[in-house]
């Protein structure tokens, strides 16, 4: 008997009373102003979210947010960046990128998360960049995670992530430090 069969046999042998799957219907939280809530939560988790105003230039906004960023990387059409991450051979080559600018799919108002599916050759870009900018459409914000998971889908890369704020840790005496292994700062631009 294979391991798999033995484990499944043991499970069947020991399972006694069974329970029904509940209906997941609940009146989950809604916000009167999803964009405002998203911006507030983003700030509370150590990140930032800004709305691109009408007539404002996206590249200039990014430059004003990160004026000191040296090497930038992006494959988003129309974004000025030093490197196209799709041109690198290995994920290691992205080490040293100051600013990654990536496209997100949608945001979640209740926790400031942005659903990002891999749409660059090496997904290390999302984590290895010193700072990260995620672009989403401002009408692409859902209220809560129930709506989020109804919407979240994968593409052929088979990797997706809700990113909520920058990388952080409090492992030394519970003192919050932003920028543990991943980005030291994160801005979501709503356009």
């Amino acid at each position, binding site marked *: 008997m294979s*391991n798999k069969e033995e484990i499944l046999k043991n499970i069947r042998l020991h399972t006694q009373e069974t329970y029904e799957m509940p209906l997941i219907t609940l009146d989950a939280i809604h916000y009167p102003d999803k964009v405002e809530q998203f911006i507030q939560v983003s700030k509370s988790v150590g990140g930032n979210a800004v709305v691109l105003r009408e007539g404002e230039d996206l590249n200039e906004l990014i430059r004003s947010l990160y004026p000191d960023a040296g090497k930038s990387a992006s494959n988003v059409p129309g974004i000025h960046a030093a490197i196209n991450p799709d041109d690198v051979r290995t994920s290691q080559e992205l080490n040293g990128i100051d600013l990654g600018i990536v496209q997100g799919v949608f945001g979640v108002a209740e926790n400031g998360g942005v659903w990002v599916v891999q749409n660059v050759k090496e997904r290390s870009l999302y984590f290895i960049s010193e700072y990260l900018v995620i672009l989403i459409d401002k009408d692409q914000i859902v209220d809560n995670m129930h709506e989020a998971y109804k919407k979240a889908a994968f593409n052929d890369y088979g990797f997706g992530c809700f990113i909520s704020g920058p*990388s952080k*840790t409090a492992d030394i005496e519970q003192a919050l430090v932003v920028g543990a292994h991943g980005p030291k700062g994160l801005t979501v631009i709503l356009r």
Partner: protein
Amino acid sequence: MKKETHIHAAERFLNNKKNAVWHDETLWQTRAKRDRQAALIPEWEQLRELASKIKMHTITHLDHYLEQFAAAAEKNGATVHWAKDAAEHNAIVLQILQQHQATQLVKSKSMLTEECHLNPFLIEKGVDVVESDLGERILQLMDIPPSHIVMPAIHIQREAVGKLFEEKLNTEKGNADPTYLTRAMRKSLRQKFLASTVAMTGANFGIAETGDVVVCTNEGNADMGTSIAKVHIVSMGIEKVIPSHDALSVFVRLLARSATGQPSTSYTSHYQKPQKEGELHIILVDNGRSSILADKDHIQTLKCIRCGACMNTCPVYRRSGGYSYSYFIPGPIGINLGMLKAPKNYYTNLSACTLCFSCNSVCPVQVDLGNQIYKWRQGLDSIGKANRTKKVMSDGMRMMFKQSGIYHAALKAAPLINLMPRALIYCKADKWGIGRELPQFAKQSFNSWWKKEVLKK
């Protein structure tokens, strides 16, 4: 195996008063943050109820969901391994490393690999195992185990970390600034990440319908590891499978809020397919879990999502620290898991509970932690581990309460205790006298007062 009882280990922890107070207050702050987050969600209690029900359903249909999960994961291109116990799990990991001639393994936090003693096993085989969670890495360099499942190094003070990094990472002498130290480790581990060809993570959830594995971290270490290395090994307990993303939405709303009082972890990562030209290995580990299904008193431990909220709220854990428990998972959930693993080895942890049931009230999946501890205590005699003094006392009390003559005589005699010398009442044999004051007995019992004052009038 630690032979020391919880009581003695706790005493040692409390000797460092400053540290003990800090530990208590810091964990209570985390509990308070959890409360604030919960209060922001009007449907919070409904979520807990749903989460509990989904877990009960899943663990009582585990064969179905595991098969569905494995089939979906394999269809996505992952390789699914099944391990009956820790030894099989460790052998599978080693085999994958050998297939890739990997001499280094970069890991993100996993309590399951701790349970399987994977690190010492691999290190003995010559593998450079690198823990990448900051807290875990600190502990690895100190060569000590975690004292909390979510905040593993909560018992370590910044000065100790500073000193450790001076020695291991060449940091400035006397600099114990958390940001400075974290950045030093970031720099050091970045090199390890860049050099790794195999990365390992645990799993918070496995989704049966879609076959993806979900890992939640704040540091981004799981993603840093698995986005650079082309081979990803996931170590996943069989009880981590849940039906769907719809079900997942309930759990992710509860997990971080309960664990650290955050609305979400920074990263909620879904690994569905291997990287291009890479491999994704998922090891499904039983290691005693399937047997717990038959234990109706303790089956609910399988609902646990390892958030650590029961530790943060526990008045005993906060004041005694993770190391006072002899099982590697401390706190209310650890007391129960230890008893399920080996009752005769871990039964002394049962005393680390006041039966206040605060753990039950905060558990995001409504595990009946306090009830279970109570039940274990009731069963101590059956495993030959009941406290003999308590046994004699309860036998005596049973006799007294059963025979009204003896009971009334004792009641009448009780006020005499007021006259006994203090040295006799608080003698060494009386453990209940430590830190407690016996109240004065009334001159007459309620019973005789009632007869005299109420019935006679």
